């Protein structure tokens, strides 16, 4: 019985670690990416897989209880509302005439960076 609990704990920790990595990667992406529409994608990473994985890890910890059902409900609500909110923000920005960056974005070549010119 002890070994089962140990396996459950390890599965929970692994899921939570992956979820935390996704959330942090999304947060870093929101800071680093160049324009609004690309930042939106980075925020989407957090809301889909990261949040669901953390909720799943907590469900493993809670076991088969009423608390677990509530956690499932929170995960379900996040799963439904986050794409809707992302679409609402994107649609509002598009209607308001915010133009997306469509050219290739890459860091300037070191030689160009020195002379202060953009390729």
């Amino acid at each position: 019985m002890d070994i089962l609990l140990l396996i459950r704990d390890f599965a929970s920790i692994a899921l939570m670690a992956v979820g935390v990595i996704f959330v942090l990667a999304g947060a870093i992406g929101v800071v680093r990416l160049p324009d609004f529409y690309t930042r939106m994608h980075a925020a989407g990473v957090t809301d889909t897989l990261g949040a669901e994985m953390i909720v799943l890890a907590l469900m493993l910890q809670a076991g088969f209880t009423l608390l677990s059902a509530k956690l499932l409900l929170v995960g379900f609500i996040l799963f439904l509302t986050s794409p809707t909110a992302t679409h609402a923000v994107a649609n509002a920005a598009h209607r308001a005439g915010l133009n997306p960056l469509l050219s290739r974005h890459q860091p300037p070549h070191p030689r160009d960076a020195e002379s202060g010119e953009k390729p």
Partner: protein
Amino acid sequence: MMEWANLGAALAMALAMAIMLGRLFAGPSLYDRVLAANSFGTKTVLLLLIFSLLVGRADGVDIALLYALINFIATIAILKFFRYRSLEIALAQMSLRRAIDGDDD
């Protein structure tokens, strides 16, 4: 062991929230700020969930549930306000449509 993992996850959530707060203040356009606020809310929900399991009180899960719902509604309400400069326009449109359809129940 589990407690330490939960504590680490909670601290990581707090760190992600701090980063989001930076984008919220720095964001050049309004939509960046709304996006950051929405993402901040999602991380708040996760932090509440982890915290309520960490301290062993199940009440936090209910609060997280409410926060998830309010976060979504707040995002929609902010966007709607900045598009129409009013929150009542949908009700006005609805009553107009009802008047055109000609049924009042």
